[in-house]
C-alpha cells in the first residue's frame, strides 16, 4: 500500500491542524494496511462468505490448483485483466463446477459467478473488471463434490466503479449490443479450444454521478451469459457491473465434433443479445 507519512514541519496553526488531520488519516491508512495483511478480517468478505457459502469451510487452494492472475497495481482501474485457472490432478474424477470472483471493496462485492459443465477440461475464465478501491480479490472454486478452495490477491487501484463508462459515452450507446465471438485455433475433436466473447455494452455501474446535474447514470449492465456448444451447455455466467465496459470473456471448451457455439446474453434491462459461430473440424 502506498502511504506517505505526512510531513509535519510546523509553520502556523493551519498547517499544524493539517498535520493533525494528516496524521489521523495516516493512522486509518495503517489500519487499512493491517486489513491488507489479513485478508480473512475483511468485513465485506465475512458478509459474502456467510451469505454465499453459508459457513461452509473454504480451504486455501493448494499450489497450482487454482491460479488467480491479476496485476498488483492496475494500469487502468476501469479495465483490469483478471484470470482464474484451475487444474485438478490427473485421475481426479471431480470437476470444477463453479468459480466465484469476489472483489472485497467494490460496491458490488460478488463480481461474477461462472458455472461449468463436466467434460470441458480444466475450468478457466479470463475477463476484465473495475476496481473501486485498494482491495483483496478472491477466486473461489467449488468442486463437484462440494469442496471449496480459495486463492486471494491484493491489488492497488481506485475509482474503477464510479468512473464513467467509456472514453466516449456518446459513441458507446450507438454500438450497444454488438457482439463478437471467435475461437483461437482449429477445432480438433476432444481437444480444448479457446473462445473469446466480446459484448459491446457500457455496463453502467449506476455509481457515476454527474455532480453538476446531481444525476446518476442508471445501472445498466450485462447480467447473464449462457454458452452452449452443439446444443449442450458449456458455461454460464452471472455478472455484475464490476465487469468492465464492453464485457470480454475468454474460456475453454472441448468440442467432440462439429457444431454451433452459441451465446445468449441478457442485460439488466432485459435486452437479449445472441451470437452463433459454426465450427467444423480442420481439414486434415
Amino acid at each position, binding site marked *: 500500500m502506498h502511504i*506517505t507519512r*505526512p510531513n509535519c514541519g510546523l509553520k502556523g*496553526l*493551519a498547517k499544524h*491542524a*493539517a498535520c*493533525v*488531520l*494528516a496524521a*489521523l*488519516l495516516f493512522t486509518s*491508512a495503517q489500519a487499512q494496511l493491517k486489513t491488507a495483511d489479513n485478508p480473512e478480517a475483511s468485513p465485506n468478505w465475512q458478509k459474502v462468505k456467510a451469505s454465499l457459502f453459508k459457513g461452509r469451510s473454504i480451504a486455501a487452494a493448494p499450489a497450482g490448483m487454482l491460479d488467480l*492472475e491479476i*496485476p498488483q497495481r492496475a*494500469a*487502468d482501474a476501469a*479495465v483490469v*485483466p483478471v*484470470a482464474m485457472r484451475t487444474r485438478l490432478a490427473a485421475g481426479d474424477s471431480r470437476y470444477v463446477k463453479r468459480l466465484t470472483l469476489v472483489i472485497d471493496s467494490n460496491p458490488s462485492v460478488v463480481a461474477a459467478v461462472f458455472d461449468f459443465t463436466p467434460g470441458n477440461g480444466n475450468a478457466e475464465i*479470463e475477463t*476484465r473488471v473495475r476496481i473501486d478501491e485498494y482491495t483483496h480479490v478472491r477466486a473461489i472454486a467449488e468442486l463437484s463434490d462440494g469442496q471449496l478452495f480459495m486463492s486471494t490477491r491484493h491489488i492497488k487501484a*481506485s*475509482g474503477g466503479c*464510479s*468512473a*464513467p463508462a467509456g*472514453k*466516449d*459515452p*456518446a*459513441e458507446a450507446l450507438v*454500438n450497444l449490443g454488438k457482439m*463478437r465471438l471467435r475461437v*483461437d485455433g482449429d477445432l480438433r475433436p476432444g481437444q480444448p479450444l479457446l473462445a473469446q466473447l*466480446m459484448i*459491446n455494452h457500457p455496463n453502467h455501474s449506476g455509481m*457515476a*454521478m*454527474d*455532480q*453538476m*446535474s446531481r444525476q446518476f*447514470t442508471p445501472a445498466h449492465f450485462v447480467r447473464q451469459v449462457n454458452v452452449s456448444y452443439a446444443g449442450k451447455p458449456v458455461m454460464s455466467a452471472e455478472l455484475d457491473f464490476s465487469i*468492465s*465496459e*464492453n464485457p*470480454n470473456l*475468454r474460456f475453454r471448451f472441448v468440442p467432440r465434433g462439429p457444431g454451433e457455439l452459441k451465446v445468449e446474453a441478457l442485460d439488466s434491462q432485459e435486452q437479449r443479445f445472441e451470437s452463433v459461430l459454426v465450427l467444423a473440424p480442420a481439414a486434415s
Partner: protein
Amino acid sequence: MALRMLLAWMTASALAAPAVAAPLAMQQVAPGVFVHQGQQQAWMEAQADDVANLAFIVGDRCVAVVDTGGSPAIGQRLLAAVAQATPLPVCFVISTHAHPDHVLGLGAFAAASGGAAPQFVAHARFAAAAGARQHNWAHALQRDAGITLQPQALAAPSLAVTGAMEIDLGGRKLALRAWPTGHTDSDLTVLDQQTRSLFLGDLVFAGHMPVLDGKLKGWLAVLAELQRMDVALAIPGHGAPARDWPGLLADQQAYLETLQRDVRKALRERRSLAQTLQDAPVPGGGPWLLAEHFHRRNLTAAYAELEWED
C-alpha cells in the same frame, strides 16, 4: 465528534487561505502571456498537486486564465499570481479538459474579480466528464494528501464550446476550439491571435509521457490537424513551451503511432490484454518521463479501443 469539529475548523482555515497564498512563479513567454510550468510528476504521486502547466493572458479590459491546477491551493496561488501581474479582473476561466491536475483550482476563481464571477469556459462535454469523475478526484485528494474538496469546488461551465468560439479580453481575442475525442472527450485549445500562442492542454505533452484517456485514432487525427495551424509559440499541457511548431509534436506522434502499431500487432497475434501488458517493455531512454506510470495504462486504453476495429 472531535474529528468533525477539527474538520469544520480546518475548512474555515482553508477558506481563509487566499489572503496568504504565495503567488505561483510565472514566466512571461510572450507579451501579456504568462505561463506557469508544473512539475513533471504524476498527480497525487507523493501528494504532488502542481503538475500541470497553467497560464493567463492579459487583455486591455480583463484577464483569461487557462487551467487552474491540481488542488484548491494551486488555484489560490494562481489567482495570487494574476493579482501580482495586473490589477485587471479575471473575466474568463478556461478549462482545457476534464482532468484533475488541470481543473481542481477552479473554485478559487468563483469570486475572483471583486465578487463578480467570471465566465467558466469549457468544451460542451466537460460538465458531464468532470461531474462523473469529481467524486474520484475528491477521494484521491483526501486519501493521498488529506485535502477536503468542497462539493462546489468545481464551478460548472457557464460558457460551453462546441466547434469554434471567439472571446474578447479587450483589444485581444482568443480563438477557442473544441475537438473531437482525442486525449479526452473534452479537449479544448486556446489561440491568442495577437501573439499566435497556442495553448494545447494535454493534446500535446512534452517530456511527460502522453496519457491516453480518449481515443487513440481520434487523437492522431487531431494532431494531424493541429500541425497545420500557424503557431508562433506552442504551450503544451505538461513540459516546456516551444517555438518549434509542428516540431514539438514529433515525439508524441511517433509514440502514439508506435502504440497503435504494437497493439494492432498484438491483436493480430491474438494476444490477450494481460499478455500484451505483460510482454510490453516500458520504453526507457527515449524522450519520455513517467513511462512507468503511464505506458501500461496507454496500452490498456489502446487495446480496449482497437480490439473493436474492423
